[in-house]
């Protein structure tokens, strides 16, 4: 029984015209419909829309950076300004200790920060989903061991563990991503386990099992599609904590020394004595960038949770 599950038999709303279509196209039509539903509910979440707008603007600014800034200004030999200049019409947010414009640094730093944040979050959520599903599906000692491991990772101070891992593996963009992913999957695993157990109790899984579906088929065809909305909301929230973690690690001097990230810029500001020099322009833009992006992802993630969980919607 490796064919498509017959979706038409389950959704009562399928009308006569869809009977002529292939099962695959019916599945896609249903997915499009539920996506439209999701969007209709999401649009009502004002905070979520604000978060989404911020993300769109920041993505555009980051992608279009080569067209409106000059990357060569980030080269120490090419620095256009003087030493820690305060903001002027030429350099909106002043310059750093070797005369590079802060604003250009922050715009280019977005690439590293967003990239690390997104990749680490995707890895963490994937790991968490696999472990959570396995813990729920297999039960017995496998489940016990996996949940113990999950609890262990939830409890431990994540930053301390991530620092230890980066020191052990040597600082680079890749090790930071690995360290963040390894220290932040556990929350998702716990969430996914609970949800998987709820889904596995539903009648259509019983039907699939009765028809002889194997573990893999049950998981990928029946459980995972139902988990997806929850996993996506979790991933969105995870991006914000991953970006914060990346900033913290870079600030502690464990970032990739050759790349600019927002945390790395703040590290340089701290080391160059920007605090005692009162150079607020050196610290404000990278910090605000982190704050905005993290806040935007958090708002989107929370709005998604509200859409998915009607109990959170309250009296709206």
């Amino acid at each position, binding site marked *: 029984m490796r064919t498509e599950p017959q979706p038409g038999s389950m959704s009562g709303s399928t009308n006569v015209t869809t009977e002529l279509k292939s099962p695959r196209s019916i599945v896609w039509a249903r997915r499009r419909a539920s996506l439209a539903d999701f969007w209709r509910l999401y649009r009502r979440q004002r905070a979520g829309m604000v978060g989404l707008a911020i993300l769109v603007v920041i993505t555009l600014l980051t992608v279009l950076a080569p067209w409106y800034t000059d990357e060569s200004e980030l080269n120490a030999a090419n620095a256009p300004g003087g030493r820690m200049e305060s903001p002027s019409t030429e350099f909106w947010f002043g310059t750093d200790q070797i005369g590079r414009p802060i604003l250009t640094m922050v715009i280019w730093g977005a690439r590293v920060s967003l990239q690390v944040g997104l990749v680490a979050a995707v890895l963490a959520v994937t790991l968490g989903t696999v472990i959570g599903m396995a813990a729920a599906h297999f039960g017995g000692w496998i489940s016990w061991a996996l949940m113990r491991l999950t609890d262990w990772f939830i*409890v431990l101070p994540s*930053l301390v563990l991530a620092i230890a891992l980066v020191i*052990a593996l040597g600082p680079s963009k890749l090790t930071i991503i690995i360290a963040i992913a390894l220290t932040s999957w556990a929350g998702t695993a716990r969430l996914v386990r609970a949800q998987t157990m709820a889904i596995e109790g539903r009648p259509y899984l019983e039907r699939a099992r009765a028809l002889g579906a194997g573990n893999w088929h049950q998981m990928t065809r029946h459980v995972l599609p139902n988990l997806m909305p929850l996993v996506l909301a979790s991933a969105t929230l995870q991006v914000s904590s991953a970006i914060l973690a990346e900033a913290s690690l870079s600030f502690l001097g464990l970032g990739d020394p050759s790349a600019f990230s927002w945390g790395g810029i703040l590290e340089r500001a701290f080391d160059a004595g920007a605090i005692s020099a*009162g150079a607020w322009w050196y610290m404000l833009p990278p910090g605000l960038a982190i704050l905005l992006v993290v806040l935007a992802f958090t708002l989107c993630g929370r709005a998604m949770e509200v859409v998915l969980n009607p109990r959170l919607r309250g009296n709206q």
Partner: protein
Amino acid sequence: MGNLSTTPPSVSPSGGAGGGDDAGYSAGTTPPGGVHRSAARRELWRFLAGRVSGAVVSMLLVLLSAFFIFRVIGGDPVRAVGGDSPMTPEQRAEIEERLGLNEPLRVQFWEYVKDVFTLDWGQSYVSSAQVTDLMWDRLPNTLLLTGTALILAAGLGVWIGARAGWRQGSTFEKTQVGISLTLWSAPTFWLGMIVIIVFSVRLDLFPVNGMRSARGGDQDFLPDLLDVAHHLVLPACTMAAVIYAQYVLIMRSSILEERGNDYLTVAKAKGLRDDVVRRRHAVPNALLPTVTLIALQFGAIFNGALLTETIFSWPGLGLLFYQAIKIPDIPLLQVLFIFFAGTTILANMLADIIYRFLDPRVRRSA
């Protein structure tokens, strides 16, 4: 039967081998409450044993991972000791000998386990002081900072969170949630930098960093206390600001969970003021899940302490960890890692146990 009545009832159940009739009779004479209570006590011991053994297993996992992270895949310790200056093979061998690095891994691990249980954690690579001495020196300072920040954040957070949840949909709720999320999104170290620039550099209200002014150590008790308190204000507020959000959000959602319950309707129907219903009825119940979640967030407090102490040069464990990262001073990092992880595991175990005593519903369902 007269014979039975003289035997003390407590003996009979344990001596069940004396005969089925005998045991059945004495079980019948003990009051039903007593049987229930002893079963409950057994249940409690089983629960405690489960929690404690879980914590022990977690702790062993920490010790094992500390060994593997720092000894096996960690960088070159010889270079950490000798610095980047070139050294002869003899010098290198001598350092390896001193650190015990020339032994096979198996022996190193055994030595490590022995050291762990004899509390001999080795010397710092840099200062050659015992790492445990370094740690104990700094511990009170970290406790002072994190304790103050925790009380500030949890107290204010629970208070604001309860009010926000009680008035769901109000402007007050929306503003408070907005403030919390914004503070949560701010990187701790950045907030610290901005706070220093504004309040120390520009306004000159508070000292820039450190824990005491450089006036020499021989101050009287009261001036010293005031001096430390003056230094404490900015770091404690920065740290509190970042961990504050969790308490607001957790307390708010716990109040939301309680809001529909019948007992609140009854309390309102009795004619109690809205304020009293919240304070006396809703908040105590909503506090219960908050306790567990606060314990789960304990690790986050160490994360916050690490970054806050670094920015404010507060001489605590976090700053010690930061200084050790820069070298990297492996024995020091290792002991601090074990300490941070061990404390969070212990705190969570205690929270689990306390929770059971606080919430009778958990006791009954267990």
